């Protein structure tokens, strides 16, 4: 049984078809990558999966249950953990407070006993704190436990956010550009962390990521979105060298310099293939300015 089964999801915003007929499937224990140029609809797909957006068509199934009409907090409580592209943390609180808050659905006492303060509550609060500490140690952030989130560097916040999502005890970890704001070295460490999390916690991961070496290293399977449509899917190497993917990203590079190309060993043939690829190439290129116009 797939952990996550996104079945032909489509969503429109006014005149913009942000997703059309997108299907994605994530099996248990898999690390699945979701790539695509800016504005392709990756974050929108996350929002449809987690309930922030209601797709116009299609269903989302999670752990065998149709959750298309389930509210966000219930999906989260049932094991959908996600991070946000712009860092989703309670920034006025400290790191450990975020991790304790994130355990909300797992708290064993009810609101009233919490406010009255029974002995069981005190005991349980200590357990919540201990568990938060364990998670921070797992991702090497224990020394930041009492720091206020607002003062931390962006890359660190991204890591803290991931720790907070881990504290929700997720079945699937959905990461929206986890390596943004990190240097190459930190990104490499992030890769280690993700692989370790899967090994140690048995996590399933779906991640949006632009950093190609990271995607190639950790992902078992990659989906590529472009203009709201699934361009291709498959093992990371295949997807990276897929002519249409290369073209989609080259168009991007021409505009914003954010491309697949930097991956050192295999980039030469890929770039070549993209440049000389007549059927898909020109068509894509012609659509570029149109998209930019829509966005602006």
């Amino acid at each position, binding site marked *: 049984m797939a952990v996550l089964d996104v079945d032909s999801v489509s969503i429109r915003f006014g005149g913009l078809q942000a997703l059309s007929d997108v299907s994605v499937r994530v099996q248990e224990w898999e690390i699945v990558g979701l790539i695509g140029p800016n504005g392709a609809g990756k974050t929108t797909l996350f929002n449809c999966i987690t309930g922030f957006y209601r797709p116009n068509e299609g269903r989302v199934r999670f752990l065998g249950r149709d959750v298309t009409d389930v509210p966000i907090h219930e999906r989260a409580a049932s094991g959908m953990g996600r991070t946000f592209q712009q860092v989703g943390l*309670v920034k006025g609180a400290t790191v450990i407070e975020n991790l304790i808050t994130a355990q909300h659905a797992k708290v064993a*006492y009810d609101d009233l006993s919490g406010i009255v303060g029974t002995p069981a509550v005190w005991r349980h609060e200590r357990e919540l704190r201990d568990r938060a500490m364990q998670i921070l140690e797992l991702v090497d952030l224990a020394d930041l436990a009492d720091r206020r989130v607002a003062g931390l560097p962006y890359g660190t916040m991204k890591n803290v956010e991931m720790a907070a999502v881990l504290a929700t005890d997720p079945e699937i970890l959905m990461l929206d550009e986890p390596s943004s704001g990190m240097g190459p070295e930190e990104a490499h460490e992030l890769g280690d962390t993700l692989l370790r999390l899967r090994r140690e916690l048995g996590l399933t991961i779906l991640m949006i990521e632009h950093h190609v070496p990271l995607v190639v290293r950790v992902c078992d399977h990659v989906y590529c979105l472009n203009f709201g449509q699934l361009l291709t899917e498959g093992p990371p190497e295949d997807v990276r060298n897929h002519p249409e993917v290369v073209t989609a990203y080259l168009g991007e590079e021409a505009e914003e310099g954010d491309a697949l190309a930097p991956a050192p060993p295999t980039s030469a043939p890929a770039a070549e293939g993209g440049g000389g690829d007549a059927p898909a190439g020109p068509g894509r290129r012609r659509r570029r300015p149109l998209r930019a116009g829509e966005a602006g």
Partner: protein
Amino acid sequence: MAVVEAPPGAAGDDRPDPERPGTGTGAGGGPGGGGWAARGLAWAGLAFVVVVLPLLLPQFHAFRWSEAVILAIAALSLNVLIGHAGQISLGHQGFFGVGAFFAAYTVTVGGQSFWVALVSGALTGAVASLLMGVVALRIKGLYLALVTLAYGRLAQETLFNLPMFGRGAGVEAPRPDILQTNRAFYLFCLLMLGVVLYLDWRFTRSKAGRAVSAARENEQVASSYGIPVARYKLLAFVLSGVFVGLAGTLYAFWNQRVASQDLDFELALFLVIATVVGGVRSRIGVVVFTTLFHLIPDYLSDTFGTSAPFLSLAAGAFLLVAILVYAPGGVGQIIRPITRWMGGGPFARGDDEGFVEEGVRGRP
């Protein structure tokens, strides 16, 4: 979401404080024997002024101080909304009055005891506030402020003039025998303030308070932490309603009668100023400022003969501006070194006290 531009946050936040005087001195940071002696002396002094002094002075002082304590409880109620939940109420005299009238009614017409009235007053406040919470789920910001304003006014014009509440003539609220004297009643008010402080403290350090706080700062993040945001907004309104209903009940029995003209917009304004200048989310700051804000003009007008409410609201407007500019965390922020020291910490400012909370986010 965040409705009031709640004067930026953690500055007035009680969280970073050591949990309690006496518990855990922390690794290596605890005060020595002399330090504890000095702190003990400070606590004893405080206890003397708050508990013993009013019992030594003539009865009318205890009467006056009781009102200050009751207003402090009402301000703590507003702090739950403005501080913890990021909501606003400009009609808090409405909830206060609903609690007061119903409690008085419970005793005078219903023939129940004071203790039953205490519960019924608090529950009535909770129900009235819950209804406002349902409205607040749909209306936000300025519009919510206007709705609460209208509610307070409407309550005064209609609810408080219902036949069951004496058609505007008010309702008697005789005290029980054991609380007959002003001194005894003052002690009881103090006890209730202690209970409210304890509940508010537990609230902020347990599941519900964390959920309300997270929802105030970022609803999207809160819901992705598995928090049902709407439910916790309502819970904040209910808790606030219990506190203000209790305050209203105490007020009825303090004055031994309730009448609608005592519960006008001026009370709501006083409470908003008291909460914001006291320091949102700083329960100590709110209590300290509210009591002084009430008592100082009272005692001044004894001497100078000015009308107390005028003095207090004029000063309040000035203080509000001063606070917003110089110490967004309010009195709570200003006295933080003292409260921290009395809790066993060093007499120093924290390093993150200038923190300013973010505004509303865009799409997820």
